[in-house]
């Protein structure tokens, strides 16, 4: 795979010079804030018919927010959207759909139990009178669609039985069958293998040649360089590059995504690490069918081991599997201080000294209607009770208050409901919860996701402190700053496997981003 040149050898031919075409969609000065967070700060964006515009940026740069504004999901606070030279204002996704702006979401949202034909023509079935479906006509229509785009699928196949790439194709064709003017593809290739990606890109190029305007959101930069005509690079809610792909190079794009090339946030070197001591945690050929393959690494006391990769590379799955909380049966084993931890049982993992901070705070972390006391004390109730399971409320309140003070949680008090707290403070509550279990190995999945900048700093300081106290930390994150600031070593994941490790001076934003986007760690370059 080529990483260096701006135009990879396998590049598809762009249909025409992008500048010559009139913009199908033209946005100017879009801004949008969520509470205190300014997600977009005056973004200009345009797509011309028959071209593919790439949209790249780190997580939280504002890509999906921008895509959602175009698709009518969010209304911008200010700024203009012009569609076919006419100003539009969408107040809902249906309106954008009616104009022909269709989004293909990252998840495969097809009905798995229905056939391909039923899915393709869902809610658009050819009928006789009284809504009786014309089975043959429907099948033929589906067949025509599939043949047109050369998808090797039978209309009668059940979607659930198809491999991922074909599902993705069906999903794209379904979107195409709505006759879109603009097609927004959100990470279309993240669930596909290398060979499948080729086929998907070919389909995109082919549809573009028919006049559809594409917006391609992707973390895979090599793909962007292969298939796109134009490129928008976003960072911190702003478009930092807007121009033809041909006018830039992959290293330039990486630099634009990362921003300041001087790393202000230097990693502190931690002392007292003895290479000879037995590792705190050993993970041996951990695997989850379809998600993780043969994961192996070791973690030492007081070490912060980063794990990163693109969305869909299996980061969250790794965090859960190490904790024994994988949705599917995992293979391989985890050892703490040389002793194997029984698999598939979070309670056993906790008892062995592993803690897991999940990334989905609202669904898998906090209990919003419960008090801070209940949230923090949940895993340690047994420790806080007397004979017969009667709770020691004084001890529970004291534990909570101590943690609120220690971690600087801004809350009305221990009896406050978790829902009253801001995201950052909820996250600190979860830190308190897991720290109280006195973990030896602390697995953190995106510990600073969705919290504001100030809280991010505080949480990072907390992580540093925990490591200094001798806890081994597995920091699963896609935030480059976090990796650079906190980690001693960084493992790179790509499509469910660990493809490399960076340590020492090589833990840098550009190196990490390049390795994640390309799926390989390059040899030390000059």
């Amino acid at each position, binding site marked *: 795979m080529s990483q260096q040149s701006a135009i990879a050898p396998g590049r598809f031919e762009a249909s025409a010079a992008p500048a010559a075409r009139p913009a199908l969609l033209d946005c100017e000065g879009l801004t949008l804030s969520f509470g205190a967070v300014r997600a977009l700060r005056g973004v200009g964006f345009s797509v011309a018919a028959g071209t593919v515009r790439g949209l790249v940026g780190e997580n939280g740069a504002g890509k999906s927010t921008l895509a959602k504004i175009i698709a009518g999901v969010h209304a911008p606070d200010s700024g203009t959207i012009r569609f076919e030279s006419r100003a539009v204002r969408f107040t809902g996704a249906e309106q954008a759909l009616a104009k022909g702006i269709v989004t293909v979401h990252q998840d495969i949202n097809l009905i798995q139990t229905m056939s391909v034909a039923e899915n393709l023509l869902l809610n658009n079935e050819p009928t006789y009178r009284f809504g009786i479906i014309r089975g043959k006509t429907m099948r033929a229509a589906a067949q025509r669609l599939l043949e047109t785009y050369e998808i090797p699928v039978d209309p009668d196949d059940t979607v659930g039985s198809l491999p991922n790439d074909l599902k993705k194709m069906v999903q794209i064709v379904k979107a195409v069958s709505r006759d879109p003017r603009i097609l927004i593809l959100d990470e279309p290739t993240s669930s596909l293998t290398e060979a499948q990606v080729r086929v998907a890109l070919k389909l995109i190029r082919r549809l573009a040649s028919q006049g559809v305007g594409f917006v391609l959101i992707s973390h895979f930069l090599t793909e962007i360089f292969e298939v796109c005509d134009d490129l928008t690079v976003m960072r911190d809610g702003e478009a930092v590059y807007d121009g033809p792909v041909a006018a830039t190079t992959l290293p330039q794009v990486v630099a634009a995504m990362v921003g300041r090339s001087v790393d202000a946030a230097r990693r502190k070197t931690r002392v007292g690490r003895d290479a000879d001591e037995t590792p705190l945690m050993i993970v041996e050929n951990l695997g989850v069918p379809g998600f993780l393959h043969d994961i192996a690494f070791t973690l030492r006391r007081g070490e912060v081991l980063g794990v990163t990769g693109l969305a869909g590379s299996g980061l969250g799955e790794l965090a859960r599997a190490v904790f024994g909380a994988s949705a599917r049966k995992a293979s391989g084993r985890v050892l703490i201080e040389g002793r194997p931890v029984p698999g598939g049982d979070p309670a056993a993992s906790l*008892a062995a000294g592993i803690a897991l901070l999940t990334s989905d705070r609202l669904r898998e972390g906090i*209990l919003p209607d*419960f008090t801070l006391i209940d949230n923090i004390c*949940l895993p340690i109730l047994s420790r806080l009770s007397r004979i017969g399971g009667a709770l020691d409320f004084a001890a529970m309140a004291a534990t909570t208050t101590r943690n609120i003070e220690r971690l600087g949680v*801004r809350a009305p008090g221990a009896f*406050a409901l978790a829902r009253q707290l*801001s995201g*950052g403070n909820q996250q600190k509550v979860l830190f308190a919860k897991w720290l109280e279990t006195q973990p030896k190995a602390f697995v953190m999945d995106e510990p600073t996701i969705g919290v504001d900048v100030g809280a991010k700093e505080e949480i990072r300081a907390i992580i540093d402190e925990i490591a200094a106290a001798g806890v081994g930390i597995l920091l699963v994150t896609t935030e480059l700053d976090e990796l650079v600031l906190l980690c001693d070593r960084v493992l790179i994941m790509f499509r469910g496997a660990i493809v490399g490790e960076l340590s020492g001076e090589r833990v840098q934003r550009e190196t990490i981003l390049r390795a994640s986007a390309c799926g390989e760690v390059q040899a030390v370059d000059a």
Partner: protein
Amino acid sequence: MTTLSAPKSAAAPRLLASLNRSYSLIQALGVLLILIVAMQIANDRFLSPANVGNLLGQMAVMLIVAAGMTIVMIAGEFDVSVGSVVGLSAAGAGWIMVRWMPAPNADAHPWWVIALGLVAPLFIGPLLGAFVGFIVTKARIPSFIVTLGMLMVARSLTLVVTQGQPIPDIPHVIRLFGQGRWVQLPLPVGFSAYESSGSLPDLLVWFPIQNIVWVAAIVYAAGWFVMERTTFGKRVYAVGSNRTVATLSGIRADRLKTQCLMIVGFTASLAGVVSVSRLGAVSPNTGEGLEFEVIAAVVIGGTGLYGGQGKILRTIIGVIIIALTRNFLNLARIEIFWQGFATGTIILAAVLLEALQRRISDRR
């Protein structure tokens, strides 16, 4: 990208939260008060000692089952088999005490047969609950469906045990307890005395409370302690609120749910034995239809249909409201056929109200 709520000042949300928390209680108590006043106006015999005594006795069985149902619903599960389990346990008790050993009459049985008849049926519910829990957690089938099957199985077994015939002549000791009123409490039911004398103290009457009501009271005291004051209760709330969070916190959710299903089974069995002692006989139809009245009572008491919230003591209010409606229909001499209509309407109203509240609090 996640939206963030701006930091709020401390006092206002706390007040709001506490209001929000007690809102459903205030509401339920309000409905209850209105009902009582309306009934007293409609029929001045309503708050008479005889009627109140009647009411309490009728409520005891439903109260006991509703306590278990509240726990299982807080855990996020349902048990619709309770009516049949009440019936089967009652039948089991009656069969052991009356039919098991040949004797001229049940009072001639040795004491241990009667004791066995009291204790053995108490294991029926927990056993069936363990079985239901096993299927629910291992096969991942909704408890509503599994207990629906159990509803039919247990009812059929009840008919087998009783041979479809009532079992009369329960030993005298048992009736003595079940129909006895050994302890008195002052209750404001002396309306006639108050009206004739005009002095307020006359309103209070030393009122003998049925023994079986005390049984229900003990069940609620225990239930309150377990749910509010023990690790078990906290875990039940957590599992019902968010199973994933609970599991990741090291709580064995499957085991806990099974335990809850055993608890509701136990309360159903206890209720069955209590009903035997109260009526002094077993009917093959004992407990029929009770499950829906109980679930309705729990919901009216403010326990959600999706688990994780609810208070066991508030269920008492729900039971009273259901029992009052039935009593009102009796007193007002409305045909018994309307009873289901009235109860059903109340259930629908309660569920709608709950949905409405959920929507309002979601919007906030």
